[in-house]
């Protein structure tokens, strides 16, 4: 049963999720001005699923139940499903200009589904059935799930079992007949507070000594012993200002990350998907990362669409839209953005079925996609800032623009002075110009830059992680043979 956006927001109020921010426990986090924009983003994934103009991308038929479900809870059944995933993500990026946070769950579903199948095949365990039962519950209730992978990792030179503080990787501290007790944390968790549930996966490939760290499971976001510490963002306290509007740039939407702490959390047996089979930790990581590197070929492209539009508007408002170099910069931004989309679509079109039956992306192309995402949004941002001009970071506050304080010799108010000196082309009001420049600021170096810039760099794995995968998948030996054959070398 699909939830409406409003039902989703109300469902969050029923959770007892423990959230901390600025040294305090936040009881009503649903309406907190710093958190709410990120909830609005997730809400959009529900709203669009109800709109006939978007249902073809936003919904799918469940392979488990035959029911219509939100595509974010879908197991990809074909390359067409993989392509539609990317298109859906582009759409949501366009509608929010932010990270909408629901992809991590979808990517976890598909990675855990196929990996558990192969674990059970080797060990005769029942993780796959556990997961199917769990996903049916998620699909039926149209829930948000945070797919949590990244551990704090401590000393990067050491394996999980060799860390001075074992809590730096989520691990099993107790095995009981009815389940396990886990301890540790997951860092940078996108949308964790806005999620009903969490799926935990290991963060790296592991050896035999790391058995207790090779663990995957699901638990409710308000499980006993689980709490979250909100990650602050650039310019975040602007959201706390009275009548905050123009200075926010994007008043409605935003992303969210948090540290999710597991303080001895009990996980019942039927919610466990990996428990000590260390050699499958790497498979789960690689599959999740592959899907998530595909995801960025959609979501960041949608945000890029909005930023390109904002830069073009800024050029219009500045009266610079006819300058050839401005036109060329918009072309370059579009070229870069569509190149990312090409990568997202390509790795989807070249997908293949796993042993479990769901579809996996082409790993090489997905890693190329994400590697480009670590670079191109930065260049798109640079060009947007170039077109916008320095005013996007030097203009007075919205309060100044609205001020009645008399400051001029002829009685001009502060607001009148600001409006006079920041007017530009006659096609816009000064306020409209301020709005678009603040919007660009928000995406380039404000709160949404978390999602569009640094998340592009490190989300779904930092650049070097993709280069390792590209090296593995690059087929260099075959390329050498090609060269030898034509050059006449035997």
């Amino acid at each position: 049963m699909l939830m409406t956006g409003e039902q989703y927001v109300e469902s969050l109020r029923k959770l007892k999720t423990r959230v901390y921010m600025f040294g305090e426990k936040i009881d009503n986090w649903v309406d907190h001005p710093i958190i709410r924009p990120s909830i609005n983003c997730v809400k959009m994934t529900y709203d669009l699923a109800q709109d006939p103009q978007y249902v073809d991308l936003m919904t799918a038929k469940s392979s488990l139940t035959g029911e219509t479900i939100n595509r974010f809870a879908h197991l990809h059944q074909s390359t067409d499903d993989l392509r539609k995933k990317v298109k859906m993500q582009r759409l949501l990026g366009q509608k929010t200009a932010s990270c909408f946070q629901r992809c991590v769950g979808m990517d976890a579903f598909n990675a855990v589904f196929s990996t558990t199948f192969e674990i059970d095949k080797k060990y005769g365990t029942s993780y796959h059935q556990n997961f199917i039962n769990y996903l049916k519950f998620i699909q039926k209730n149209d829930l948000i799930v945070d797919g949590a992978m990244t551990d704090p990792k401590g000393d990067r030179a050491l394996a999980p079992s060799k860390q001075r503080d074992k809590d730096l990787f989520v691990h099993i501290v107790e095995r009981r007949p009815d389940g396990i007790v886990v301890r540790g944390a997951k860092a940078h968790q996108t949308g964790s507070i806005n999620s009903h549930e969490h799926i935990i996966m290991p963060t790296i490939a592991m050896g035999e000594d790391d058995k207790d760290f090779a663990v995957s499971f699901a638990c409710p976001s308000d499980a006993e012993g689980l709490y979250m510490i909100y990650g602050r963002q650039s310019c975040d306290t602007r959201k706390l200002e009275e009548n905050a509007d123009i200075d926010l740039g994007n008043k409605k939407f935003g992303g969210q990350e948090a540290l999710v702490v597991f303080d001895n959390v009990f996980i019942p047996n039927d919610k466990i998907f990996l428990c000590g089979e260390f050699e499958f930790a790497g498979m789960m990581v690689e599959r999740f990362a592959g899907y998530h590197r595909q995801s960025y070929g959609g979501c960041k492209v949608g945000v890029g669409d909005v930023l390109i539009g904002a830069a073009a508007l800024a050029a219009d408002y500045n009266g610079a839209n006819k300058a050839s170099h401005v036109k060329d910069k918009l072309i370059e931004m579009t070229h870069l953005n569509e190149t990312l989309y090409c990568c997202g679509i390509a790795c989807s079109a070249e997908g293949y079925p796993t042993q479990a039956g769901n579809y996996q992306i082409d790993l090489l192309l997905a890693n190329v996609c994400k590697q480009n995402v670590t670079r191109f949004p930065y260049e798109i941002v640079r060009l947007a800032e170039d077109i916008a001009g320095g005013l996007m970071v030097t203009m007075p506050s919205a309060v100044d623009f609205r001020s009645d304080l008399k400051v001029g010799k002829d009685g001009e108010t502060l607001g009148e002075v600001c409006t006079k000196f920041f007017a530009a082309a006659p096609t816009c009001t000064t306020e409209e110009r301020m709005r678009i420049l603040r919007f660009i600021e928000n995406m380039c170096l404000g709160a949404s830059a978390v999602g569009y810039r640094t998340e592009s760099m490190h989300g779904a794995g930092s650049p070097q992680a993709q280069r390792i995968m590209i090296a593995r998948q690059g087929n260099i030996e075959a390329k050498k043979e090609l060269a030898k054959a034509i050059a006449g070398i035997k």
Partner: protein
Amino acid sequence: MKIGVRFCGGCNPRYDRGEALDIIRKSKPNDEFVHAVEGEEYDMLLVIGGCTNCCASFDHFNSLAGVEKVWSTEHIPELLEEIEIARNRICNPE
């Protein structure tokens, strides 16, 4: 005629698909345009795509006179003619 409408998902539409449907609707005031639902039977299925790919899924819908696709407002005049042809075919079966 009862015409089932299926939009593509709208990831990067080159025109306003909703506005296009409004134009089509106003041009054919005696026909009923409804959002297509699985299990229902329509006289015609209209697929409105936002670009040349026109990737909307529609195989799971039933239609007597087949499927018409548009992915540009330039297609609307031709579509309106096709609706008339379909009407004649349905009203005057061979």
